[in-house]
């Protein structure tokens, strides 16, 4: 990261330069997980927007449909996500104006997002997000990811943020080709539960989005059941009174 601790005559100039670029995120969303299943793509994200260590917003929709065929999920700075949605709105609008019967599919949107993120990174002014893009067009399923610096790839299962460390091991172990909808949802919920237990910025209010050939649908928000009744938690100092 560019450090800007200059104390010379150029000081004020550098200060002005710094106000032109993103240095750190303010309101952030945590992980997004996506998997391919038999009929298309399933993506899950919780609805929390953290302001540093405070859980400030509890109804942030971090997944939005893009065009007819795709869905975008984002973690990281929420305002940058909203900016990306505006860019994509414009992209889809121009595509519709061609009125040529073709519509932008997930592969094309993924490429656009990759160019967007990479070019911003080259100017040292990144959009502080990790994006998950999933979609189905003409029967072809597509699930890809773009990181803050423009690293992009396509895979059968992707995750952002903490999901990389906690959810991907589970997905690598248990994901199979052609899972049914119920199996896919169960696998995503398993990962989201581990994230809920172990990621401090996760909240127990999540949505799961389904993209198939027929279109995009995002479920209403719901909560997962947690379990806290392990006997070791009941009286940890059982063996030695007064210790902890």
């Amino acid at each position: 990261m560019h450090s800007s601790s200059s104390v010379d005559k150029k000081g004020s100039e550098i200060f002005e330069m710094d106000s032109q670029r993103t240095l750190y995120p303010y309101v952030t969303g945590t992980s997004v997980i996506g998997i391919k299943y038999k009929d298309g793509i399933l993506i899950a994200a919780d609805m929390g927007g953290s302001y540093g260590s405070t859980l400030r917003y509890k109804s942030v929709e971090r997944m939005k449909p893009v065009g007819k065929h795709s869905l975008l999920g984002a973690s990281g700075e929420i305002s940058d996500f909203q900016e990306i949605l505006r860019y994509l709105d414009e992209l889809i609008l121009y595509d519709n104006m061609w009125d040529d019967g073709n519509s932008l599919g997930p592969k094309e949107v993924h490429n656009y997002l990759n160019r967007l993120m990479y070019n911003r990174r080259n100017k040292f002014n990144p959009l502080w997000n990790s994006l998950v893009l999933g979609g189905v067009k003409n029967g072809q399923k597509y699930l890809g990811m773009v990181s803050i610096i423009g690293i992009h790839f396509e895979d059968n299962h992707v995750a952002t943020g903490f999901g990389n460390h906690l959810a991907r091991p589970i997905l690598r172990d248990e994901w199979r080709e052609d899972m049914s909808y119920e199996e896919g949802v169960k696998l995503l919920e398993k990962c989201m539960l581990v994230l809920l237990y172990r990621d401090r910025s996760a909240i127990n209010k999540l949505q799961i989005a389904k993209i198939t050939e027929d279109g995009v649908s995002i479920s209403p928000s719901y909560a997962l059941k947690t379990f806290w009744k392990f006997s070791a938690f009941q009286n940890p100092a059982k063996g030695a009174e007064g210790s902890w």
Partner: protein
Amino acid sequence: MLLQKGVQPPSFRKTGTTIVGLVFQDGVILGADTRATEGPIVCDKNCEKIHYMAPNIYCCGAGTAADTEAVTDMVSSQLQLHRYATGRESRVVTALTLLKSHLFSYQGHVSAALVLGGVDITGPHLHTIYPHGSTDTLPFATMGSGSLAAMAMFESKYREGLTRDEGIKLVCEAICSGIFNDLGSGSNVDVCVITKGRTEYLRNHQLPNPRTYVSSKGYSFAKGQTEVLSTKTTPLKEKVEVIEGDAMEE
């Protein structure tokens, strides 16, 4: 001054690691991977991370290898002396208190993160100890760089009252998750099962990373395979003649 010239200080031998422990119905099972790293290099492909503390207490160590070895050795000796003094089997909380007070007094400079488990007269116990000296008592625990990958396995699959085989299977799954998803962990799985009156140390219980391409014919170096450019023979001859009775005369 040397740093300015670009010389890098030697990196410590760390056990960038996955270590786990869980409580099952008869006792405690500890697990560890076997890779020791020095920066980006694997310096030991099959090291032992489950250390002996007492016949009924074992301790897995992550962090700087020298620190984990030294601190567990030291407390192990202290426990033995204590056993002689009291005439009783060591308790896990004793090891816990000795370890945590030592680590606290060094304010985190002894970089040892430990998973301590054992079965004593009061029952099975599992604790984690952090380098600064704080401890937790848990039904299942993971530490090290691969702890998140291993914890993902535990959080999704652990339940109370596991049998011995289920427990070993879950521990192996968690360590394998660390081995394959974390770069700091690798090689083999060590497991230690501690129950009342009996401890089994299963060294290299699983070897999920065998050498795949070993030449089955072996390597032969026949005479004539290497071209000889020149030959020079120097016969060895005795330099010293020892004559009987010629030693130093008093």
